[in-house]
């Protein structure tokens, strides 16, 4: 069958139009779920873990408004499954997008936030991911336990927008060349700002943690 030059032009343009339309559709579908195959290097992907439905909705919104992609799960076990750490021959096909930050509630049935933190820090694949613990209870030994285990920060619930913005900015900045400026990385800072009862013992805690923290514990953002 003889095909004219104009037929070729027409068919080629049609091909490219269809190609771009299908690409747009793929991206739109990807955006409906929490993960997408194309990620902007500027946006953090945060895994938020909380057994409370209302809290999940709020933390998701707090993070989205702070320009993060968010995946929420209802338990520590689910979080491990998502990361592929549940011993189920970790399929990385489960997540299409690398996790840059994990925010988890402390008190959860099954695996607590602390136990989740430990599992993540024990894993060679995920120990560099910063983990932030949230709790409604301001219990000093609990906070110390989490920070010693390598938590990036400890936020008191109810979490506020200012807390999340500070946190995400810090994580984004830590992707840049390391600064040995401990004043900037005073991670228990948020406890003091959240806690209306800022006693002097909290201040002492801040300075002692800063002095003791080895720089190897600084969380690096992997792009």
């Amino acid at each position: 069958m003889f095909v004219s030059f104009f037929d070729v032009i027409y068919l080629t343009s049609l091909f490219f139009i269809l190609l771009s339309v299908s690409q747009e559709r793929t991206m739109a579908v990807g955006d409906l779920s929490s993960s997408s195959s194309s990620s902007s290097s500027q946006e953090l992907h945060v895994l938020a873990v909380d057994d409370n439905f209302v809290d999940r909705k709020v933390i998701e919104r707090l993070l989205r408004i702070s320009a993060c992609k968010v995946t929420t799960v209802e338990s520590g076990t689910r979080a491990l499954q998502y990361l592929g750490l549940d011993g189920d021959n970790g399929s990385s096909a489960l997540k299409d997008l690398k996790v840059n930050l994990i925010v988890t509630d402390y008190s959860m049935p099954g695996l607590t936030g602390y136990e989740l933190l430990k599992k993540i820090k024990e894993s060679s694949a995920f120990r560099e991911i910063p983990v932030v613990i949230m709790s409604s209870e301001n219990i000093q030994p609990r906070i110390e336990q989490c920070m010693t285990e390598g938590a990036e920060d400890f936020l008191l619930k109810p979490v506020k927008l200012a807390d999340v913005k500070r946190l995400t900015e810090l994580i984004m900045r830590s992707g840049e060349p390391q600064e040995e400026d401990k004043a900037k990385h005073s991670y228990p800072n948020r406890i003091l700002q959240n806690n209306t009862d800022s006693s002097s013992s909290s201040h002492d805690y801040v300075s002692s943690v800063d002095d003791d923290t080895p720089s190897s514990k600084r969380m690096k953002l992997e792009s």
Partner: protein
Amino acid sequence: MDTLVAQLQRQFRDYTISLYHQGFLDDQFTELKKLQDECSPDFVAEVVSLFFEDCEKLIGNMARALDQTGNVDFSLVGSSVHQLKGSSSSVGAKRVKGLCVTFKECCDSQNFEGCVRCLQQVDIEYKSLKAKLQDLFNLEQQIVQAGGRIPQVDI
């Protein structure tokens, strides 16, 4: 003479302030409003709606647990109270949260009568808040329908 919009806006402002002053809401509710924008204009309404559903479910669980006369699982009641305390705190439902603190103490001390009393109070309180917030959201709708903007209320 005031326009309809101005009247509605004043009503909205006064009502909002009264809810805070009477202790129904605290500044966490204000925080939730910060999360609302043109892209998510109903965020607060959605979250409080989820909260009230949660209340209903948890209160149901607690009632069933307390109904097991002679065999009440106080830790079960306690964990439901903990959940309720958490979500009420997250939405700024101040009175509900306050009741949960007392309720938790009753669970911890296995005070059956105390628990029953607290359960009744929590039930009344969440329903009361639900009605008041519904009135508030209705006012918002009326303002918008009358062509006005919902005023920012500084507490």
